[in-house]
């Protein structure tokens, strides 16, 4: 049996296509950010494809958020910071000497 519906990837591609006029108006570095966001969202296809009844833009937004959260976490790790859920940074005591 062949497929009768579009795959999640195909739907995502169509959705990005619908944004093409929006993308056209972006400046160069904004455009780069847009494309990079699209690439990030494609990285979460495995999860997106498990929730097909959801609107595609919802899935797009959620995937982008997760991707951002993950990038943030990576940066925090790199900076050796651990931000709490309430956005506060742990108090760092200055060395006394």
């Amino acid at each position, binding site marked *: 049996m062949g497929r*009768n*519906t579009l795959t999640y990837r195909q739907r995502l591609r169509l959705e990005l296509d619908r944004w093409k006029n929006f993308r056209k108006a972006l400046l160069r570095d904004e455009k780069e950010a847009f494309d990079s966001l699209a690439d990030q969202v494609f990285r979460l296809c*495995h999860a997106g494809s498990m929730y097909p*009844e959801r609107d595609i833009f919802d899935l797009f937004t959620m995937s982008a958020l997760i991707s951002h959260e993950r990038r943030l976490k990576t940066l925090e790790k790199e900076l050796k910071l651990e931000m709490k859920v309430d956005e506060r940074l742990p108090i760092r005591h200055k060395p006394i000497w």
Partner: protein
Amino acid sequence: MRGYLLDINPSGKDEVILWVKRLDGRVVSHRIKWMPKIYVHGPLENLVKLGRLISQRYFVDFVERSVKPGSPPETVLEIKVPFGGKRRLANLILDLGNHQLFHIYNVDLPSMQEFLYQHELHPTALIDLSDHGFEVLDSVEDIDYDLSWIKTAHLDAEVRASSIASRFSDRLKEIIIEINGERIVLDGSEDGILESLTKTLDDLDVDVIITDGGDSFLLPYLHYRAHVNCVRLRLGRSRDPRMFKPSPSTYFSYGRVYCRFRGFKLRGRIHIDSSNSMLYGETGLEGLIEVSRVARIPVQDAARYTIGSCMSSLQYYQAYRLGILIPWKPSNVIYMDCWSLNRADRGGLILDAKTGVYWNVAELDFKSLYPNLMLKHNISGETVNCECCKDGGERIPELGYHVCKRWRGIVPRAIELPLKKRMRYKDVIKQVRDDRLRTLYKSRSDALKWILVTAFGYLGYRNAKFGSREAHLAVCALARDVLLKAIRIAEESGFEVIHGIVDSLWVRREDAGDQDYLELAKKIEEEVGLPISYEGRYRWIVFLPSRTHPDRPANNRYFGVFMDGRLKYRGIEARRRDTPPIIRKMQLEILEKLAEARDPEQLREKAIEALEIYRGYARRLILGDVSIEDLAITQVLSMDPNDYVVEARQAVAAKHLERAGISIVPGQAVTYVIAGASGLSKAVPIQLIEEGSYRLEPYLRILERAAYTMITPILGSSKAIFSIAL
């Protein structure tokens, strides 16, 4: 008298001939009176009237059979029909019932298969033949059955061709028969050759004739030449069928166009056309016979069937045995709203790889995942969303479907034998030391793999007799569930999951050794309850990016080297069938070079050395130091050459061939060399090209792209390093 069942064929209207090779080596034919049957179901009083009407010409009987799997037997009309008369009678009965009253069954069940099912027989069976009938002495479940009694010969002919294409009007030059490494050449006058051919085949006592193009040219040609020369040619052990004209047909499957020729089947001897048999081409005679035994199909038919038809025969057999009738035109239509279709119609789960080089990665594959799921969860057309277990059946994740608990489906019953047998072959392969035996078991197990692969696809096929879309969707949902579980287990055990695709996982932990990975495989196997195989540990593996979006991965495009030195590559140019041999050679040479690396530092060094390999090949192309065969591109035609809107190279090549008198039908392949930029020189068939006349530029471009695929993931993507310094 004991012997092996070589072949069966119908004879006249109501007789089947069994060709048996006795243990002393003599082949005898044995005739049995038998006729195929069809069944009619409908209101009883109408059946009685119908029975009375047609009993004047046919043998009829009232019998009890199930018209649906799992339903109780009902009274149906059984009609014995002479060979070849099923369809005509079935249509007549449908007309009589106004296409409303009657349903007809077993119409497209091939007669010889029905004969085998009824007598619990299988090709190459060891049987004990007596005046009262026969007894089968071996079983389809056996894994070491004897085939040493089969005498195989390769048959080929040389034609005095007047052009590059041989025609029926061309005279025969010689015939070459190869048997047991010996080569027998028959030459001389045409009628002499043809006369001695029959005698030679009989003297050598050949059982299986293998040809290249026997269905599409050779056998009809030989018969035509015999006719012209007034010679009685016989290639089988009894009179050959009359067929002077090869008849090709084109079909479409999984996005590709194929071409198949009507088979030239012999009587009492088996003819296999290696170019017209997918199974023979993939698995050889051993694999072909394994399939005909397991699926109970005469060898000559199995050679020409699609794998799907072979697999269906297993289901038909199960149905036949259980007294279930096989619907002629299955009407298992289900209706679904858009919403549920959108939710259910998805394939396997794919976890994208992050592109790049990875070290110390293990590959874990579920063994025959889909067939095992179908067997374990009893998935069949009639069991998914059955009427009887609405509240109590087993639930399918995500979709909320239920599976019958009372009836074991036809599909799981049918795949049990090939699935279990394949596992047994795989176990034996690991144990045997003898190389010859290992390849033998390997080809048999590969043949069974083909059957298992199609078992799933056929579930949702519109003409499948025992499938349904829901069953198809249920298997996909189960498979996704299994892979997700496996990923969770791997992560909980401290592994990083790099890539997952339908039934395979690539996992990594920096310090992990074979033992750790094996333990993980065992853990998944225990928790999920499905067999898993540990493919091995890659020293390094490269997951490649997509060409159009370099920041996104392309699934199923990777290459790597296992710890034991085995190479594995998928989706790269060397795997594609339309890649010229020279490109394939270069990529493999580069891969072998890269495989020497033991750590990331060495890999970079080897990649730089690999650049030299690429430059060497480029130099050879420029200097003309390549044979024309190395540049040949083989492509399959998907349409008639004249229907192409854009002048595709394969269409141009086909047009060349058409001018030379060779007609190419869609599904056939053409092999060509790029000789110019436009017009007819764009692609010249290999048969017509002169040595050295190729166009350099496109080949250099393909070469560079192939090298780029292999080297950039390691050295980074700078086009400059690909400059060719001569």
